[in-house]
């Protein structure tokens, strides 16, 4: 039984590290920031989840210690990985990092332009009102 569980957790760790390798491959090969952060965020998080779950299984089934810290680490990485990727991509778009020249669709451009125009008109309105006072 112990052999089975250690082999299963070893396989999970191996699978997770292969996924992490794919994610690094995507990080090198993909053409722009947004596609790269897609590779860096999703598949790296999946790989790390596999590895930590394998470690959790190994310590729970083979060594007989149920580790809350490892579970906490799994939950934390699962929550924060996508959030960090989103923040990074948002900062990249708002500082004007260009998209790949073969990208076909950009819905955020119009929305961001509208938001900037509204902010601008509100600001001029405020300035006008304060000058009138």
């Amino acid at each position, binding site marked *: 039984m112990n052999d089975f569980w250690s082999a299963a957790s070893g396989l999970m760790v191996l699978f997770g*590290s292969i996924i992490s390798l794919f994610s690094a491959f995507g990080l090198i090969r993909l053409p722009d920031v947004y596609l790269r952060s897609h590779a860096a965020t999703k598949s790296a998080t999946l790989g790390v989840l596999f590895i930590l779950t394998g470690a959790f299984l190994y310590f729970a089934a083979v060594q007989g210690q149920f580790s809350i810290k490892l579970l906490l680490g799994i939950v934390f990485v699962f929550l924060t990985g996508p959030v960090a990727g989103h923040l990074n991509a948002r900062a990249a778009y708002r500082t004007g990092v260009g998209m790949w020249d073969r990208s076909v669709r950009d819905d955020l451009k119009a929305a961001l332009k509208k938001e900037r125009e509204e902010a601008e008109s509100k600001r001029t309105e405020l300035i006008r009102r304060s000058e009138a006072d």
Partner: protein
Amino acid sequence: MMNPMLEISLALLSLAAAGCMYRLLKGPSISDRIAALDTIGILLLSMIAVLGMLEGTSAYFDIILVIGIVTFIGTTAFARYIERGAVMEDE
């Protein structure tokens, strides 16, 4: 049976970290470098988990948590910095 698998996965993980290092050094924009740094932190975390399994000790679990938190805070701070020009805004 398990130890060779763990050693192979350590080698694969360090290969992945080397790939991220390439993007960290070359990356055209700052956001590329931040994404690469984030991925390197996450790979480091999983390497430490594999190392703990190899040595059969649970002493490394604290390090996993701390590296996870530090990586997230670092990415958030860098993203805020390049978006607004400051990490903390006083208002």
